[in-house]
């Protein structure tokens, strides 16, 4: 079963935990069981692809808090919320908590597996996105300080002449840095460079 997604089931009820684990294993998933959100946070690894199946009523840690702390830990595992209340206040609470999916207990196999599949798809998307940005970051790290300086001004739409004036060098030198940076970042047009800068969060207004 190596390679199958790992579903992290968080529920304080051992009976329910065991039953869901059994179902998910029968459906071909790997399962890790946690009694509480705290226990999960002790080792929030998202290395193994998968998602979290979380019982909403966890008095020690509610869903929203768990989500925040996972993000802090850089964990992108999506959460499927389960609740025993099935009433409007708890549904609203779950949606506000950022639930991607919200299920009421008792939940049938079909909706449960469908929700898990959607979560896994989200995980894959997030994972791919994160991998791409990681590639761009490593390209960016190859730029020299001068090249990075020139690149940041280029994506902000400055002309070579303006850049040369700003950093106190000749226009020809700016051209050379610019060419070299574009080469390292494997882009040919200024538009593509702007797109990379934006995805890496480099276009935020500067404090100066």
């Amino acid at each position, binding site marked *: 079963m190596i390679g199958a997604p790992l579903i992290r089931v968080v529920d304080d009820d051992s*009976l329910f935990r065991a039953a869901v684990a059994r179902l998910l294993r029968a459906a071909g998933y790997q399962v890790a069981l946690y009694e509480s959100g705290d226990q999960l946070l002790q080792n929030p690894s998202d290395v193994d692809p998968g998602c979290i199946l979380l019982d909403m009523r966890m008095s020690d840690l509610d869903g929203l808090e768990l989500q925040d702390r996972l993000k802090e830990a850089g964990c992108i595992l999506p959460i499927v919320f389960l609740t*025993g209340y099935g009433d409007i206040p708890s549904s609203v609470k779950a949606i506000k908590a950022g639930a991607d999916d919200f299920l009421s207990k008792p939940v049938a196999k079909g909706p449960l597996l469908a929700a898990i599949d959607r979560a896994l798809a989200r995980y894959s998307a997030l994972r791919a996105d994160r991998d791409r940005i990681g590639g761009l970051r490593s390209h960016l790290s190859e730029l020299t300080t001068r090249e990075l300086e020139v690149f940041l001004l280029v994506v902000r739409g400055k002309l070579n002449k303006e850049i040369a004036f700003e950093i106190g060098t000749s226009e020809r030198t700016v051209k050379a840095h610019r060419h070299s940076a574009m080469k390292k970042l494997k882009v040919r047009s200024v538009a593509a460079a702007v797109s990379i800068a934006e995805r890496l969060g480099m276009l935020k207004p500067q404090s100066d």
Partner: protein
Amino acid sequence: MRPVCASALVAFFLLVMSGVATAAPKRVLLLHSFGQEFAPFSEFSAAFRKDLPQQSAGPIDLYEASIETARFRDSQDEGPLVQYLRALFADRNLDLIVTIGDPATHLLQRYRAQLFPSTPVLIAATEQRLIDAEVLSANETSVGVTINFDRVVDNLLAVLPETTTVAVVIGNSPLERYWVGELRKLFEPLANRVHFLWFNELSHKELLERVASLPPHSAVLYLDVWVDVDGISYEHDKVLTELHAQGDAPIFGYVDGNFGRGIVGGPLLSVSAISRRTAEVATRILGGQTPSDIKTLPFGLGAPEFDARELQRWNIAESRLPAGSIVEFREPTIWAKYRWPLLLTAVVLLAQAVIIGWLLFERRRRRVAELESRQRVLEVIHLNRTVAAGALSASIAHELNQPLGAVQSNADTAELLLAGSPPDIDQVKEILGDIRVANQRAADIIQHFSMLLRRQSEVDLQRFDLNEAIADAVRILSAEAKKRGISLEANKLRQPLTVRADQVHLLQVLLNLALNGMDAMSGVAPDLRKISIQTALAGEAKVEVSVVDSGVGIPKEQLKEVFKSFYTTKQHGTGLGLSIARTIVEAYGGRIWAENRTEGGAVFRFTLPLAEPYPI
């Protein structure tokens, strides 16, 4: 002044003395035939002694003498008796002689010239047929009596028609013998109807014996016994009294003197009327009227009179009495005797009955009202429980969805497993076991929850361990506590705390207090939310339960107010939870109160008497 007074007194006395002297008493001699004590003459003379002075204008000087000899044999020398009378009364200047009975009359008439030639004579109480009217001089008159003995017997037979024997009780003196002769003749025509027994020639003892041995349907005709065959005389009503006491047969008589003394009754001679008439005539003679001018009709038997007691004794219906009969001596009815006491008693009894009835009615009403109010209290308690159940329903539903969710997942898994080839039967078995466990848990949750919804019309008193009620309360509350992020704990004493109450009621008290505590903690940081239920022995006969919260506490001045009905600080509270907790605790002989904790929060405590005191 003194001499004048004294002389006036003397003059007054002289006047009085002279007045007395002028009204000289009239001397009257009563001459008896048989001595003074023989009925019915004795009654006559007794009445006459009273009547005469009453009717007479002046004072009467009454002498009495009896010739007595009438009791004895007829032929005897009357000389000494005449001399005796002369010696006594010849010089008395008698104004009137009243003879009583035939023997005295005849004796006087025989010796009148010798004894009292000029004294007027009034013949009294003598049968008309014994008075020779033609012999009477101008100086003599009579107030006679006519006794129709046939009427007496007719009456007897009318009243007791079944009578076959009539015993005639009479003495054996000469006069009595005369009457026996007269009556035998008189009763002759009745011989075919009734048998007469003549008891005149009997001794007193024999008489009583004969009367005692009379055949059935006999009656006694009592005509007074003066002298029996042995010559023994009987005064007053001695014989009548004895016959009556013996009670062998009904007794009939003819003189009203015997009426009320044992005779049944019938037409009677009125002794008092004769006496009054005699006194009247005597007064007129004493007043100077010529005796022969005064004519009076002889007295006869009067209207029939009957003695009610005798009628009852001999079973004679009043309807059988002749028309116009007078019935005397009626036994006064209880009503007549005790009219007012009876009336008063009746009124008192009635009043009492009314009061008792009213009180019973009131008591009934009160009982009905008490029952109703008890019912209402139970209803309110039940209502409060359903409110608590409502408050807990969300958490209970979640609690219930856990095993249901497990069952669902297990069933789905089993389906998947069974579809595989080969199916994993071992795991399916494991799943079925888990389904059973989950199902049991769901059943437990429902059972606990349904305790709250149980409607009861009567209190179900039972002995139980209070620890169990606390465990139940914790069980029911745990889901709610978890939902609200409250830690709930209960210390448990090792020894059983046996109390006598309705377990559901005590569970309700614990839930009310705990839910109240939970509500008080909604504004408290999650880490600090804590409810604990603690038990402790308070003395050897009481247990104290405390429900401690870490909420906001209670304003000091409202520590007592919180138990009042409809006191609430919550937007959706009914204000009944604590009030009902108090009602329940007090109903089982306990006490409930609230305190604030120094470290924050409130504690509600209640005590309950232990059904089995715990020895310390």
